[in-house]
């Protein structure tokens, strides 16, 4: 047993029970259906902004782009305008590819030796594939949920639902995204447990969001396909939240409150966790700056003068030897020793 994920698993189970007991036993629907979501949203927004402002307050003193390709220099070489961009457009494309396709993660290129049978080519893009599946599935699920917060339901949301429910098998229609999300989360978890080097580097903070998202997805799927909740009433609640006229309709079902509570926890947890990579990627100087650093000067806001060893101090120390060796000097030694400040700001 691994303490790191046990702690996280227990934490998520406790949260689950908390919501269940709170609603089913103590009838705290208002707390779990209205107060917590509002508080969580407030923490999320404030925390997110706080974090971004915190990053933005620290300046970027040097343009430390990771140049992952040929620079723009001479006509005989063809530059990699995306991997080593020399202008804003290139940077934007690089960032877009990074954000939408996880380009760097995809870069795990492999080399195959063809003339020996000892090694076989092995596709090792699983991490990339599942990470991408996870994020897109999450995104689709998120957009789909806009149905609960808009009236009438936005057209793009309806289109997306159609697309997502492409595999229509009976009623209700199956949304692929929820299952992909579950599968990807499970893969990402198993990967951390099975691969010793992953297990070694993983912290409770890596397992907790996985379990939390798993529980959210599972409760959502349960609600939709198994223990159905009153969807009309559920929407009344969620619409009440967004229109700032919160109400608690009767008989939605406990599962709904559990789901909402776990989402609230995720929201509140978000800004204080590694999940902030969502915002952080935009702030990363190795990716969001062009590599044209010899072409255009980059300003460091806190650049300060430093003590240097001047040529004059250098010549003072070595003048005689330099003259003897026939090296030109600034000052020929006169009868009086010419004392000068040795070091200069």
């Amino acid at each position, binding site marked *: 047993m691994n303490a790191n994920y046990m702690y996280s698993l227990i934490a998520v189970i406790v949260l689950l029970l908390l919501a269940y007991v709170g609603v089913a036993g103590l009838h705290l629907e208002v707390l779990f259906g209205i107060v917590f979501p509002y508080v969580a949203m407030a923490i999320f927004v404030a925390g997110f902004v706080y974090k971004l402002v915190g990053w933005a307050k620290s*300046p970027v003193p040097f343009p430390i782009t990771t140049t992952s390709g040929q*620079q723009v220099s001479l006509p005989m070489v063809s530059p990699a305008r995306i991997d080593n961009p020399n202008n804003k457009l290139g940077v934007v494309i690089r960032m877009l590819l990074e954000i939408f396709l996880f380009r760097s993660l995809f870069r795990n290129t492999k080399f195959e030796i063809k003339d020996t049978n000892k090694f076989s080519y092995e596709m090792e893009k699983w991490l990339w594939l599942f990470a991408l599946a996870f994020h897109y599935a999450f995104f689709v699920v998120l957009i789909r949920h806009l149905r609960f917060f808009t009236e009438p339901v936005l057209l793009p949301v309806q289109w997306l639902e159609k697309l997502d429910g492409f595999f229509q098998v009976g009623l209700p229609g199956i949304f692929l995204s929820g299952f992909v999300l579950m599968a990807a989360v499970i893969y990402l978890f198993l990967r951390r447990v099975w691969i010793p080097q992953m297990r070694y580097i993983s912290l409770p903070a*890596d397992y907790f969001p996985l379990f939390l998202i798993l529980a959210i997805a599972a409760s959502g799927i349960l609600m939709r396909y198994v223990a159905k909740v009153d969807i009309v009433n559920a929407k009344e609640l969620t619409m009440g939240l967004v229109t700032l006229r919160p109400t608690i309709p009767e008989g939605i079902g406990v599962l709904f409150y559990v789901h909402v509570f776990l989402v609230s926890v995720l929201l509140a947890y978000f800004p204080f966790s590694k999940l902030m990579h969502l915002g952080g990627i935009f702030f990363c100087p190795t990716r969001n700056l062009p590599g044209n650093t010899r072409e255009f000067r980059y300003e460091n806001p806190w650049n300060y003068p430093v003590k240097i060893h001047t040529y004059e101090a250098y010549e003072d120390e*070595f003048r005689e030897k330099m003259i003897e060796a026939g090296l030109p000097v600034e000052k020929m030694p006169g009868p009086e020793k010419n004392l000068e400040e040795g070091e200069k700001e």
Partner: protein
Amino acid sequence: MADELPKPEELIDVEHVPPITGWMDTPVEIRKGMYCYAGNPKSLETLGAPNPRQWNPTDEDWKLPDNWKEIVFEGLRERLDKFRSFKVFMDICVRCGACADKCHFFIGSGDPKNMPVLRAELIRSVYRNDFTKAGKILGRLAGARPMTLDVLKEWWYYLFQCSECRRCSVFCPYGIDTAEITIIGREILNLLGLNIDWIATPVSNCYRTGNHLGIQPHAFKDMLEFFVDDIEEVTGVRVEPSFNRKGAEILFITPSGDVFADPGTYTAMGYMILFHYLRDLGLDITWSTYASEGGNFGFFTSHETMKRLNAKMYYEAKRLGVKWILGGECGHMWRVIHQYMDTMNGPADFLEEPVSPITGTRFTNAKSTKMVHIAEFTADLIYHKKLNLDPSRNDHLKVTFHDSCNPSRGMGMLDEPRYVLQNVCNNFYEMPSNTIREQTFCCGSGSGLNAGEDMELRMMGGMPRANAVHFVKEKYDVNMLACVCAIDRAALPALMDYYEPEVGVTGLHELVANALILPGEKKKTTNLRGEPLLGMEDEDAE
């Protein structure tokens, strides 16, 4: 029978089970061959660096100031406020593991703390403890741990097992750059006087005498004049380098290692031959004894030290009144020039946008920094057919090219040296694609780790590179490893000596000079190293 005999692996004490404790609870063991000696107090004094004293990494007592924890805390705080990179990198890692097996030190040593993610976690854990709410409240559960002497020792041990090569940053989905974390971590260690001598002493030498090795001006000139004799012996042509000459058009700066130790010396001769050849075509260039170091071990110490050493380049260019600066082959020197120099010590408004006096090419990619890489310069010469080259003079060589980390991932100079190589030699073969260009493997000795006492570390770190060389050696009979970095030229011969003894190491401009047909040269029978050219084995190599 099978069950009665003792099992040999039981007789040998090898741990098969994973360490029961997690990495936070596995204290560092400072092992011989893996670390460099502590910085000489005299060198620290020259620089006015904190806490100069005699100390030994294997001693229990590191002779730290009493308030060292406070210094570390303040050091972290200050840098979090000054470097967005550092702050973001402390927060956003999701420990996906993509970087884990990209580090040459992990691949070679198998030490899990050499996985870039874990190297960074060594610092992150303390950051979380001291600077984040989650860490303060949840402690270990949030991946936080307090600073202790053991943690500090761990920082020191593993931050000096990172060569700041940035290979991991190429693969990181968020662009987290372990080099940046190591740079800042080392900067904090330096606040406590925890540097290594292989860095501290070159820095101190460079500060005072202008170069890492402490070569004084007259000796520097002498060295190059000995090269003049050597060159005359091989080519029959006497070259005339000039020094500290005011009014020259171009200032030339290269790492001093090439003036001092083989095989870099042949590269230095290569520059001299090229400059001589170009003199009649209009090249007006001078060397400097004051700015006689292109390398900058200050970069491996702190941002401030880097700036103090680098300042000499512009300072000297201004004093001599040159128009622009040409830089020799070096790795980290070029990261400093490309990404730091103009910002730190610019604007260089007293210089002009570099224009090749031979071809008239404007190096617009260097128009602000005003410093051009010699591989760019030479590639341009070849492109304009200004060099009379006979690549067959390098026919005894089968060459492969090692991309140095910094010109690759901190600049993007990948094809210029290849263009030059393909024009000066006939046999050029690439190593496997995931070991070159932006994915190049480090020599294992970068960032000031090319000392003698950490030879095991260097051999481990260089193993992935040696392995790729082995491949081309077997496949194409490669016998020469070309590079554009002075640390490579110092470190790779040792690496090759251990793994691939038949493979030599050369700088790019050694090959250029060997292929260059000089006006008035004698019949060439050997290259600069005195080795007979192909078909000239029987000639009297005088």
